[in-house]
């Protein structure tokens, strides 16, 4: 159970942001490409320098070491990267039901990374992230490379995670139907400002 709060949080392209995402809440984030969505997520994960403060519940980012913060605030980037040759080298436990929930079986351990499709990479990268047990999820277009059935599978897996662990989730997506399905509140970046959208 964890909430995320940003206070006067400032990244290069955006005006300072104050934002509260409650525990178990998912907000959607959209905006034209290049507007600073990815940069915002990277700054929240403390991968880029930024101003202001971020909190998990009441613990500020600056009070914990960067590795601790990043393992608690899990960022799923739009493009996944792999540092070893085989899938299994990136996981400590591939027995977890999460692997099969995302449509893989044990055999995938020995698969070579270079032979994975972009959709397989995206789902395995989600598995890698969730098995790291983050408390907050920052998702950068997690279904961009997926077909309809895998997209549904990923959505329901994240939904189940959010309900079970009561994680705060920020979900970047351009797909309005998806925004409506996954998120309770909707935000948009327009001209360097983060604005909450009111849907009727």
């Amino acid at each position, binding site marked *: 159970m964890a909430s995320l709060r940003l206070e006067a949080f400032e990244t290069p392209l955006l005006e300072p942001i104050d934002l509260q995402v409650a525990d178990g809440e998912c907000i959607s984030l959209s905006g034209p490409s290049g507007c600073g969505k990815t940069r915002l997520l990277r700054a929240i994960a403390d*991968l880029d320098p930024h101003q202001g403060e971020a909190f998990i519940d009441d613990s500020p980012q600056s009070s914990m070491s960067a590795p601790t913060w990043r393992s608690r605030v899990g*960022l799923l980037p739009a493009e996944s990267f792999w540092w070893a040759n085989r899938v299994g080298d990136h996981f400590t436990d591939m027995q977890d039901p999460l692997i099969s929930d995302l449509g893989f079986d044990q055999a995938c351990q020995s698969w070579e990374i270079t032979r994975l499709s972009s959709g397989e990479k995206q789902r395995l990268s989600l598995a890698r992230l969730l098995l790291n047990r983050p408390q907050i999820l920052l998702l950068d277009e997690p279904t961009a490379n997926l077909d309809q059935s895998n997209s549904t599978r990923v959505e329901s897996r994240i939904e189940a995670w959010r309900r079970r662990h009561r994680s705060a989730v920020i979900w970047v997506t351009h797909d309005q139907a998806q925004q409506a399905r996954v998120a309770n509140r909707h935000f948009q970046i327009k001209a360097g400002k983060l604005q909450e959208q009111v849907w009727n």
Partner: protein
Amino acid sequence: MELIQLSAFDLALAACLVIALAGLSVALSLGIERKLLIAATRTVVQLTLLGLVLKVLFVQSHPLLISLLALFMLLVAGYEVMARQQRRFAGIWGMGVGTLSMFISSFSVTLLALNLIIQVEPWYSVQYLIPLLGMLLGNTMSGIAIALDNLTHNAWQQRGQIEARLMLGHAWQTAIQEIRRTALRSGLIPIINAMAAAGVVSLPGMMTGQILAGSPPFEAAKYQILIMLLIAAGTGFGATAAVWIGSRRLFDERQRLRLDRLQDTG
């Protein structure tokens, strides 16, 4: 055996060969004749100057003058390391990483050799100190330049992989460890190859020099062995220091990968 003195005419004959090579470069449009001639001129000027400076120092071996020469050699080596980097650290770190690492390794190995192994009296005797330091600096310079270039090149290429690990909460040392190892290996391979080929394929320069000057070949061989081993140690420790300092500098206090600290020199 007396050393046969070389006349200016002898050197001019050798220079003609290089000029002929430059002519060949023009004929084949290699476009390298300018660089070749500049480098050859530098060799002539620099070595002549060094000969003159050492001549003075041999007469007047004041420790301060010797330190000045050693410092000058270190700074030039530091500059050379920087100049060989495609992506070098911005600001003072560009020259600082290499210079500091060479200072740590070359100077301490030279001091160790002078005091404990050769046991020269006094240890700052120009005849031993400057050639030894020069050989060490020259060789560690190459090793460090290769290792650092490899480090920054791979960190740039594999930024995604490094950050993928940071995102999962891995420490910066874990995220860069494989790149560090590769960089260190690449810096050590030239000296390992040189040691493997020494005496079989190549007759090392210092031993050649001593033999030409009339030293007994077996004494010359012992000195060459000593130098090779010292160079290997100096290069290894120097490259380790450079890769360690350089990789630390790639990350900031929040363990973020800061490639903006590198500047591309094209």
